């Protein structure tokens, strides 16, 4: 079983306690009504599906209940890093470092 480190519980917890909640760091503009259809579509529907590193939201649904973000490798399923919601996206350099 996959163990996922919850930044709020400060501990590794079994994957069955967690729920994936889609791509992280999606910027949702305040003035959505003013967006072009194309820009809205890109923001609202279009998501990355990389073979490699992905930044995702996860929820510790059957634990502390908190949403947090994770850097996960989609091939190995390895969680390279988890961090609290609201913290900045890790830089590309940091992600490269995490993959070593």
């Amino acid at each position, binding site marked *: *079983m996959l163990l996922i480190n919850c930044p*709020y*519980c*400060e*501990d590794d*917890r*079994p994957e*069955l*306690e967690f729920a994936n909640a889609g791509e992280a760091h999606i910027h949702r503009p305040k003035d959505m009504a003013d967006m072009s259809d194309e820009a809205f579509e890109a923001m609202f529907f279009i998501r990355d599906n990389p073979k490699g590193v992905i930044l995702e939201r996860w929820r510790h649904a*059957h*634990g*502390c*209940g*908190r949403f947090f973000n994770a850097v996960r490798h989609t091939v190995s399923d390895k969680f390279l890093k988890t961090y609290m919601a609201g913290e900045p996206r890790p830089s590309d350099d940091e992600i490269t470092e995490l993959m070593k």
Partner: protein
Amino acid sequence: MAKPAIALRHTPTEGHNFANGVVSVSTAAPASRISLRATPLGANSFGKSLGLDLPKKPSGSAAKGGKFALWLGPDEWLIIDEKNQDISLVPKTASTQLSAVDISHRNAAYFISGNGAENTLNAACPRNLSLSEFPVGSATRTIFGKAEVVLYRTQNNTFRMEFWRSFTPYVWGLLLDAARDSNN
């Protein structure tokens, strides 16, 4: 004259008891329970009125005189008062700092006790419940099979398991199977 109808309240776990050489499962008595969501300020004031310092550390708990406060999340606690049945712990005055909901009758609970207690729980709970990882006084929300539960280790070999009362047939069935297997 019509006879007055009398509604009797039954706990869903009534009569559930099991024991073999290594593990026993028994029903916890009805208790008062509060689901508390609070800011740090609200948590402090609620703790004062309760006479307990609410735990701030993940998986922490505090206990005093039959009252328990279990850490469930950064702003969420499960408060249990074993002694005062049906006496509400809900604060008398409204506050923007906290939300305290009486869930006394939403939950039921079992005690799982004995040398086989860890094995019994681990039959359907993926958490590491060894004493070093989950020492006495630890509390956590987790899963038991498909049911969400709260586990609270009260002694080396004793766990209190809280769950929603409608899950009772499922939890009891699974627990019984696991308890029987833990004898092997």
